[in-house]
């Protein structure tokens, strides 16, 4: 686990596309979940 955390910055640099897609999807899911909560409250 610690090894994985140590390697994380270099992995992010190596896989820029994958990181971008991951961040984009996270943002999208965050927006729709937050929006749903706001709509029903």
């Amino acid at each position, binding site marked *: 686990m610690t090894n994985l955390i140590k390697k994380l910055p270099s992995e992010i640099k190596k896989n820029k596309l*994958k990181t971008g*897609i991951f961040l984009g*999807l996270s943002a*999208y*899911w965050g*927006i*729709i979940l937050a*929006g*749903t909560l*706001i*709509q029903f409250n």
Partner: protein
Amino acid sequence: MDVFLPIAEVSVNVLAIFSLSGIVGILSGLFGVGGGFLMTPFLIFLGVPPTYAVANEANNILATSVSGSTTHFLKDTLDYKMGLMIVAGGIFGTLFGIWTFTYFKGIGKIDIVISLAYMYILAIIGTAMLVEGLGEIDKARKKIFIKKKLHVHYWIHGLPLRMRFQKSKLYESVFTPIIIGLIVGFIAAIMGIGGAFILVPAMIYIIGMPTRLIPGTSLFVTIFISIIVTFLHAFNYGSIDLILVFMLITGSIVGVQCGQKFGESIDSSALKTLLAILLLLVGIAIAYDTFFAPETIAETIKIDVNNLNRLSMFIKRLSIEVPVLYGLFSIVVALILGVAAAFIRRYFSNLRKKYIKKTN
């Protein structure tokens, strides 16, 4: 060029409807899905209220699935027994879906429920397809080949009342297709989709059907589900607009035939990734429309119903005075156009084969 829809009571651009339904048809032909999950949001963006978009797209899906299913019937790539089991579950699922639709319509929340359902479905499918597509591209680039298991067993395979499905060469519980049909029918009734994008993976990974029987059987199930959805929407809410239905059917039938042709010569992994991106973009647009610009739908310009032309007035009166007949008529129109498209395609395909034979 705008045309007024007498039932939905909005004006839409004819070219936009034709081109969008054509594009969605091409995508349907390429990926073997109905395309309802793309066309319904597009209709909503064009100003058609979500309640009407759902009902009319269900009618359009009926035509495209009849067209595709007839082609598979002629090729004998259809498992009726399995299809009818899924339909049995689908009937109850659709009825439950229409009941849920009525409930949310009653409390005035149906539009937001449809938008949210689309957002989540597009997000789930888009994410899954994007991850799978990118994974496949990555593996192909690194030349990694993983041997997959032939059949994975889930809890659903342990259910009782097993029966033999000769055509699919399976010995499975009747509850497996019934439960899948139930889920598909429910989603189809609320969202105005055929449910092929749920049905196809379920047939591959859960039921374990042979790949060659999947598109035909999936389309066969979709016919029954979309007939029920169309009829119930026409009868309960009078929301089927024949003018819109005719435009949608014409565009998508032509598109589907073109898409099936293109699909024969295109790399599927790259296409899957592109479709996933498109789905997510549509999802983002719906999210924007729902959360940040709700007034765009509410501000749609409505035209005075009393100033309609004869055809529009006739359609409007027919839907109000004889909803059962109107619902049946819209179903028959879709069936005729669908079967006609399949036979026209077969005719041209035979003509092409003859020509190739002659030239050789």
